[in-house]
């Protein structure tokens, strides 16, 4: 499945946003449905997510995880409002420990940025001495995807270190269409395909302090991505460094809480984007806090209750000096069955994003299917 997705990079993409229209798109979160339920607070400790390679050792056995997302979004901006919806598959992965070795390996396929949107505008122009109403649509499909090859190694009982190689690929088909209210004018449709290629790497660590407390950290460099338009090299955009830090705590056997903060140096892409006529980018910070409650300690995987909240900034500005922000709250749960060989996780998230006159609120329904053959 991962190989297939690597061949078809457009398959995996996360929720879209009007705040992903400029720059490289709306950044993906690289989280499994399991982690989404608690707003991503456990993401640095989650082996099914792709944030921290060291977390692969949390997978008890070979595990394949598949995540689907349904996005119901209400968009507001000075041009009007709209309700949009889309279905995506933002996270796929397979990994697990090697038998007899303190080593875990995994491959995952995640959304890096998403540029799925269609924008509609209308105007009236003077053609041949007559005012003709026109409708413009600007569409984009695709984005950047992250194919990760990761490994994690247990150093004694307390330390786990990991590293991974990221192949950042993808393509973006963009189309501009202008139609005229006067049917004697043909619709003008022009399209272009932008493809991306880059390589990144990261290292991560998880340190446990007894059974109830652990820390995680990750550092990642994505170098830069080469941008080709219709097979011709047109630009190179610096991708950010990522630094993440997380805390996980078991205050009681039935309660687990976590928090993390992830910072990305997207301002490194600013000059490249401005040089291409874009609006630039700024550094981002994502903070999440969440918890998981286990109603039945004998069956901790049976319908746990997850919840959390997150706040963050988004990298690509629509109006210079007005960086978009987002805030989200989430709940989730899950179930394991077939002797723990299969599981389903569900996450519901309500997210508010805004920047000046531009805002949107969205319900994200995330479904994860886990198989442990």
């Amino acid at each position: 499945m991962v190989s297939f997705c690597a061949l078809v990079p457009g398959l995996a993409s996360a929720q879209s946003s009007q705040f992903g229209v400029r720059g490289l798109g709306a950044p993906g979160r690289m989280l499994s449905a399991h982690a989404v339920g608690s707003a991503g607070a456990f993401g640095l400790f989650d082996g099914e997510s792709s944030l921290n390679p060291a977390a692969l050792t949390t997978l008890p056995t070979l595990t394949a995880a598949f995540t689907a997302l349904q996005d119901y979004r209400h968009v507001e901006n000075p041009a009007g409002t709209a309700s949009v919806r889309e279905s995506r598959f933002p996270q796929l992965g397979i990994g697990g420990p090697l038998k007899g070795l303190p080593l875990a390996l995994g491959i995952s396929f995640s959304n890096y940025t998403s540029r799925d949107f269609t924008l509609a505008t209308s105007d009236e122009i003077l053609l041949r001495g007559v005012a003709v109403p026109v409708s413009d649509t600007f569409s984009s499909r695709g984005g950047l995807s992250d194919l990760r090859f990761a490994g994690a190694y247990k150093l004694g009982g307390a330390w786990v270190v990991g590293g991974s190689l990221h192949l950042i690929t993808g393509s973006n088909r963009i189309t501009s269409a202008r139609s005229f209210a006067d049917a004697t004018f043909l619709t003008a449709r022009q399209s272009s395909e932008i493809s991306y290629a880059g390589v990144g790497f990261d290292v991560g660590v998880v340190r446990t302090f007894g059974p109830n407390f652990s820390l995680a950290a990750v550092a990642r460099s994505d170098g830069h991505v080469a941008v080709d338009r219709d097979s011709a090299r047109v630009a190179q955009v610096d991708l950010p460094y990522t630094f993440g830090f997380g805390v996980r705590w078991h205050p009681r056997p039935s309660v687990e809480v976590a928090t993390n903060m992830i910072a990305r140096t997207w301002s490194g892409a600013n000059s490249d984007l401005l040089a291409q006529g874009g609006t630039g980018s700024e550094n981002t910070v994502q903070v999440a806090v969440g918890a998981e409650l286990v109603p039945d300690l004998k069956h901790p995987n049976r319908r746990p209750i997850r919840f959390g909240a997150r706040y963050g900034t988004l990298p690509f500005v629509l109006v210079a000096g007005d960086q978009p922000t987002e805030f989200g709250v989430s709940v989730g749960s899950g179930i394991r069955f077939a002797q723990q060989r299969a599981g389903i996780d569900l996450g519901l998230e309500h997210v508010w994003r805004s920047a000046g006159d531009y805002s949107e609120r969205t319900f994200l329904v995330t479904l994860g299917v886990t198989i442990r053959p």
Partner: protein
Amino acid sequence: MRRSVLCAAGVVAAAAGMLACQENLTSPGQCPELCPGGTPVVFDTVLSAVQGGDESVPGYVSPGQGSALLVSNGLPSTEARAVYRYVARFDSIAVRDTARAYTIDSVMLVLNLVARDTLVNGLKVYLYRLPPEFDPTVATFDGVEPLLNDAALLDSIAVPDSVNSGPIFAMFRGVDTSKVSIPLGTGGVLAIGVKIAAESPTGIRLGSLAFSTGATFNSFVTLDVPDTTTSIVHQTVARGTQSNSFVTQSPFAAPPATLLVGGEPSSRSFVRFDLPPRIKDSASVVKATLELLPAGPIPGLATDPAILDVLPVLSDLGPKSPLDEQRISQATLPIGGTDTVRVDVTQMVKLWQSASERPQEVALRLRPEAASFTRAVFGSTDPVSPVGSPRLHVTYLLAFPFENP
């Protein structure tokens, strides 16, 4: 265990329903913030035809070879008479290898009315007998008109005002059959000339041999065959048109330095353009209109306008250039109109963009050719043309400046 499986199945079903939702990604855009690359810009330009690259060529379809014959009375555009020559009717019919004489009971001459001015009432069609040696293909107005006199009048057909098209006929019975009798030694040929009259000057179009709508000459005869039990046989001897034509009093002549489309024999015009590289190479053409300026009011029959065909030329071979009939554009020519005639040629211009080997040339053709009272005269690129030259009005967009990324 069973509850868990059922629960999981329910969640999967709900998720499947959720993910089966139709995607809808369209949201309002606000420029310039949400318009990467900006907004499309539409350009509008008027291109003149290549100087000296247009021409009018006569002689494509001769009178009588078109879909109809013209007949008029006092019509300003032209005064026309139609002439038919029927296939020979012999004076005997072969029965059992024996030529047997017959007697004529009655005769019916049928014409096909193709079109008339429906606003003019009291139409009457007059049929005149022409000499049997008359040859329509070489007829002239001055040669025909004197023959259409009272002495040669066969009959007249009063066309009801409600009849706009269809067969009209004159019936000859009894002594009147002598009017259309064919004397021995004349080869069995009957030829007729047609004039019309009406409450006001008008014209009609009659069927033509070329389109299988020519006139017919039907004789209802009695054939006496003495050696059969039914000794008298009634038969119809039908004869179609052998040749036909029409003649005009003063063949239409276009003013100098103009482009004539139509007339008889019909003329076609060729107009050449040269798209600038800006349009030919990278523009997205949304509309292209050929604009032709009439040199004067377009003559014709008020309620029977003609069609102007505009066809791309497949290969520029001058008057013999093959035309692309698959990409024809048309416009109705308004009778009496002097406004610019506009024909949408968007698909042709797009073709010129995609196929550089195709000449950027169009042919102008009247439909029906040599069968209409309409003659269109347009301005040419000649400096002494009374009106402006043909133009190509192109509306287009240049390549959209997509933002990278």
